[in-house]
């Protein structure tokens, strides 16, 4: 939880408890929630195999977790310049190119300072630039291009595997 000490500290609204969803308090125009889920294969009523997301419960090393962030505009005015930042949790490795978010520009970062789109993020090694490995990417960012209308919801998602 090293991001806790960022300069946003004066207003952080933190979720309590262990349910899979966390709520921000009402003063803000954006209601932010984040969930941890795993993808499970189930057989539906027709006997077909389908995949569903279920709350992450028995997570062991090697389990792939689907992290979903939802930003809901609860005010009467549109919110613009909506940017979601999500550090990849400690002890987890990002699944390369797994980040999705309709209407957003997705970028990644190793150091939390410089961000680049997938495939363009590089690191310096032995004086030369090389592509960053998935396990080196520690931040994901979604910059939503259009304003978020009142009552609208922006969704961001990425996957990471527990080390």
């Amino acid at each position, binding site marked *: *939880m090293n*991001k*806790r000490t*960022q300069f*946003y500290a004066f*207003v*952080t*609204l*933190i*979720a*309590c*408890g*262990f*349910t*899979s*969803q*966390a*709520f*921000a308090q009402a003063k*803000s*125009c*954006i*209601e*932010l*929630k*984040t*969930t*941890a889920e795993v993808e499970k294969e189930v057989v539906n009523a027709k006997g077909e195999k389908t995949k569903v997301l*279920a*709350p*992450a*419960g*028995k*997570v*062991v*090393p*090697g389990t792939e*977790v689907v*992290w979903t*962030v939802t*930003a809901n505009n609860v*005010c009467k*005015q549109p*919110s*613009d*310049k*909506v*940017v*979601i*930042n*999500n*550090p990849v*949790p*400690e*002890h*987890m490795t990002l699944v390369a190119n797994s980040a999705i978010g309709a209407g957003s520009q997705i970028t990644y970062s190793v150091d939390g300072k410089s961000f680049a789109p997938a495939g363009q993020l590089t690191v310096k090694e032995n004086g030369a630039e090389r592509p960053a490995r998935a396990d080196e990417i520690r931040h994901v960012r979604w910059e939503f291009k259009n304003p*978020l209308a009142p009552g609208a919801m922006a969704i*961001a998602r990425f996957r990471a595997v*527990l*080390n």
Partner: protein
Amino acid sequence: MFPVLKQIRRVGLAVVALGAIGVTGTAYAQVGTPSGDTISNTATVSYSVNSVSQTPVTATTQFVVDTVINLNVTGGFTYNVTPGALAQVATYTVTNTSNLASNFTLGVTDEAAPANDFNMSNLVVHVDNGDGVYNAADDTATAITGLGSGVSRVVFVTGDVPVAALNNQDAPVRLTATAIDPGTGVAWAPDAGADNPATVQIVVANAARNADDTFHVQTATLGVTKSSSVITDNLVPPSPNPKAIPGATVEYVITITNSGSQAATLQSISDPVPAATTFLAGNYPGSMDVSISVNGGGATYCVAEAGGTDTNADGCVRTGATLTVGAPAITTVAAGSNVAVRFRVTIN
């Protein structure tokens, strides 16, 4: 700040998993994030309203890393053994690949036919005390306790080879390790209940695993044949195709063949001179009594003194009617070789 309401089931283990438990293991590297660790994800959203930057909002969720039980057993060695040998040693390695410390019980069995040509007897498990060397006095444990995540322990199995085992026969021996929950003393029970992100639940990837080592018999396999031929009928002139008439010289050849994989050390070859014949001494070059030849090569000779005493200590002697040939005239028969011992008699 987070109300940490974890209900860790096996409190001691969640703490212990983070420490160096496998004291004398061959390698120490925690496998996977330790059971009981909390994984937390925090998202932050920044935004503006009417182009006025607003205070960013943060949301967090978390779950607890569960216990995964897993292990590896390696073997795959082949040990050459001799029939009748006792306490032959096979080596295995058990590695705890769970994300916390575990105990292990061990079982050893002979594999069944058709892989198994014979059974080793008296199979005993000896857990290595950490020095990696089998020593019956030091390696007395028969189960593994407190093996940390990522730690390996060597296990020795000893067994006796039956006397009747034949050359090139195999006896695969299987070591099975079963992961045991130190808290309950029995195998780890997987959590059948609904997934719960707040508690440490148990997932069993592998409850038990095994590996085989093989004892492979390498020994000598001896066969003996005896033949005879008439050398001469001693008539004047001698007949071209001599027959076994009184006075004829007959040569006996005793051939010892080793069709096995190891040399055989011979103690002695004894042959009573047949009735109605008399041992013919001195009939080989240099007035020697017995000829010995390996694989049909050049012969060596010895004197088979009558009267039971090998005066010149060349390994050959006659005691009454019995000829005995031993060391140093004949010592070993190498694998894939034969030794031919020849002597002559006169038909009475």
